[in-house]
């Protein structure tokens, strides 16, 4: 199976090719192609995963792509526990989201295009996960960036979608550029882009690994610098502070996209990369790079959770929650919780995809994103409600849902390795329970308020006409449950959100540890004498208590309305608008970068018009004067020479013309004579 793993990204790629070229003709049948390809990938991916579970050794295949001097660029793929479990997760969650999309996107005039983009995304994501070198990883990375851009702007007639897609692309580009520089630095330092070779080099700490660069008087180890530069990519892609601003806006895309790309997989790519390149971070002096990762993660988790409290758009709340959880993962990886962070990545993919899809089901039913305009939906949408509840409990970290086990792992690691991080993450966990309870209370409890401003249809009648469809008429009466094809994946993911966490139960692995700890283990810990802290009940109960406290507070405020939220808002004063406006970070970026950019452009234009053009005109004037003088010289001296050359050439041509007969046998004769001459010369030298 591992030998066939290279096929895994190719099936979605083939599906993309088919849909891109024949999509229009396929019409309603387009999803079958995409889902079929995904099923084949899932089959192979799970085969490889189960092989790894059964204890197969990691499989690496590499081929030389290009050779330049002494350095070679290799490409290839690797199947080991980390990549195989991630592939298994992507194919499973992705497949379910594909199925869901069949219902969600039905009647869309660009149905096939949507599945084409999703397929391409999966191809890129799987390539990125299976890659065994930074080079191939970068290729997959850029493909998923492109797909994210395309899918955020899927409703391309909406101006807000256009803005959002540009924002996402440009923001992540900042991180990607840093990462590219980092990869170049690694290539320069180690002469290869192969993961294995680089990690071995940093582990052994040889000459090339301990190179140092001077940055304004500071001596920085080059490896640390490269690691931090590479970390720039994950910061951008995984929405870490300060590049998190694009992710909430990315919710302009269709909801399955939000679920697949902006919750389950793409944003997890950054976390995955940190996990994949863990040796790079780990083997820096005093684990400096890991500390940076930990603090960026913690800060992101806390800030995003705070911002989530004040949002009204159901998908934006979930988006901030995603950012917060990604921060959790980064923090987990940063505090030496290698397995913990990646475990949270896996569980989060399930319950966050579930939450998004359920939110999509809600939006589908009521026609708005604003939670203030919902309410009481648990009666109308029973399946959606119960599955959403499962996702909510998992996210809040309530026993025995998946989130409990993975979040607890991270808190445990933080408690042992970085108490300050532990305190902040606990606060975040409390906030998480709080804002999610708020969301549930507004959406599913209380009375149905009905949308004041229904979302406008993203397409024009022409779009529908071109696709041969009828524009749907929007007359939302009472909300209605979504079709089977949408609720089916919800139920499957809800079950997943419950059971995936069980691999983290202590005692399921050897030596009283959990299975996931055994499966995803980082060899460097053992060498460095770092032991994973063992599960402790007091800590687990404490984190459970924090979560339940959050839920209880929310219940008081939003459910029972014992303390009305308006009063709290008045009480906290300017804090609420501060949070609601995303801590003014977006506005700041708008001022500094967008306005700054415009100002810079204006300044440059002024410089152009007045300074550069003036110079050019001056040069022009001087040239005109000199050229007058030249002309005299030209007419009499130069032309005379040119004509002379012309006559000579013509004469020679007339002389040589008979040689150019146009008859091949003449030429062959000359060639044969030349051959004889060459033989003669070489004979002479023999």
């Amino acid at each position, binding site marked *: 199976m591992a030998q066939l793993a290279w096929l895994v990204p190719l099936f979605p790629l083939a599906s993309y090719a088919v849909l891109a070229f024949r999509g229009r003709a396929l019409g309603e049948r387009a999803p079958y192609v995409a889902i079929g390809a995904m099923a084949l990938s899932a089959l192979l991916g799970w085969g490889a995963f189960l092989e790894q579970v059964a204890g197969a050794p990691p499989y690496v295949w590499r081929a030389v792509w290009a050779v330049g001097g002494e350095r070679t660029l290799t490409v290839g793929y690797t199947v080991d526990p980390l990549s195989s479990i991630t592939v298994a997760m992507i194919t499973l969650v992705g497949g379910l989201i594909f199925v869901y999309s069949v219902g969600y996107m039905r009647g869309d005039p660009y149905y096939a295009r949507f599945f084409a983009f999703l397929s391409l995304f999966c191809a890129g994501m799987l390539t990125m996960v299976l890659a065994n070198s930074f080079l191939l990883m970068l290729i997959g990375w850029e493909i998923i960036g492109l797909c994210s851009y395309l899918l955020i702007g899927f409703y391309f007639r909406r101006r807000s979608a256009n803005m959002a897609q540009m924002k996402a692309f440009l923001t992540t580009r900042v991180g990607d550029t840093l990462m590219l520089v980092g990869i170049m630095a690694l290539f320069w330092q180690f002469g290869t882009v192969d993961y294995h070779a680089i990690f071995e080099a940093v582990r052994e700490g040889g000459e090339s690994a301990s190179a140092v660069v001077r940055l304004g008087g500071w001596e920085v180890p080059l490896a640390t610098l490269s690691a931090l530069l590479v970390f720039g990519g994950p910061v951008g892609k995984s929405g870490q502070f300060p590049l998190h601003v694009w992710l909430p806006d990315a919710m302009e895309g269709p909801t399955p996209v939000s679920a697949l790309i902006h919750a389950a997989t793409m944003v997890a790519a950054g976390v995955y990369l940190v996990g994949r390149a863990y040796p790079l971070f780990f083997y820096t002096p005093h684990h400096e790079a890991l500390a940076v990762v930990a603090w960026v993660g913690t800060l992101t988790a806390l800030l995003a959770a705070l911002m989530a409290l004040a949002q009204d758009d159901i998908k934006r709340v979930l988006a901030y929650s995603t950012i917060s959880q990604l921060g959790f993962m980064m923090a987990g990886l940063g505090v030496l919780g290698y397995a913990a962070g990646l475990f949270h990545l896996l569980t989060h993919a399930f319950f966050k995809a579930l939450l998004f899809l359920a939110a999509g089901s809600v939006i589908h039913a009521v026609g708005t994103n604003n939670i203030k305009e919902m309410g009481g939906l648990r009666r109308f949408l029973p399946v959606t409600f119960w599955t959403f509840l499962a996702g909510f409990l998992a996210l809040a970290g309530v026993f025995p849902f998946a989130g409990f086990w993975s979040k607890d792992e991270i808190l445990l690691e933080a408690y042992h390795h970085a108490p300050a991080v532990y305190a902040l993450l606990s606060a975040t966990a409390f906030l998480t329970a709080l804002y999610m309870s708020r969301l549930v209370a507004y959406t599913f409890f209380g009375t149905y308020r009905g949308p004041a401003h229904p979302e406008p249809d993203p397409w024009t009648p022409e779009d529908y006409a071109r696709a041969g469809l009828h524009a749907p008429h929007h007359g939302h009466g009472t909300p209605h449950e979504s079709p089977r094809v949408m609720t089916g994946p919800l139920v499957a993911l809800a079950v997943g959100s419950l059971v995936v966490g069980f691999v983290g139960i202590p005692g399921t692995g050897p030596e009283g540890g959990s299975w996931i700890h055994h499966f995803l283990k980082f060899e460097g810990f053992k060498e460095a004498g770092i032991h994973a802290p063992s599960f402790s009940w007091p800590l687990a109960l404490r984190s459970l208590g924090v979560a339940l406290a959050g839920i209880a507070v929310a219940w008081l405020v939003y459910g029972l309305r014992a303390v009305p939220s308006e009063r709290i808002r008045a009480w906290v004063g300017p804090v609420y608008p501060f949070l609601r406006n995303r801590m003014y970070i977006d506005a700041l970026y708008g001022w500094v970068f967008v306005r700054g950019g415009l100002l810079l452009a204006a300044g440059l234009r002024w410089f152009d018009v007045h300074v550069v053009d003036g110079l050019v005109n001056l040069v022009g004037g001087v040239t005109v004067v000199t050229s007058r003088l030249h002309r005299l010289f030209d007419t009499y001296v130069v032309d005379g020479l040119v004509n002379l050359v012309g006559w000579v050439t013509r004469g020679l041509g007339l002389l040589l013309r008979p040689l150019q007969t*146009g008859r*091949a*046998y003449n030429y*062959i*004769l000359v060639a*044969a004579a030349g051959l004889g001459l060459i033989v003669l010369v070489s004979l002479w030298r023999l």
Partner: protein
Amino acid sequence: MIGPAHYLGVSALLFGLGLYGVLTRRNAVAILMGIELMLNAANINFVAFTKFVDPTFVRGHVAALIVITLAACEAVVGLALVINAYRHLETVNVDQVNLMKG
């Protein structure tokens, strides 16, 4: 004892004959026959080298077979061109096929 030089000698003479044909014939088909002779001369060399110099992987045989195949291709295309030229110009003499000459 017949050694490599014998075969190469035959090959050299055959090559000379072929070249002479190519250089002096007017008829395109006859030129093609000259080329075939030259190719055969080359093939004799390949096969002789295989026996007398490097027999292990019969590389010369492989080369000779590829040359035979390509000779067949060349003959097919060349003769198609000849037929086409004959149809349009009613001659197959290469010195009379000169539509491009101004």
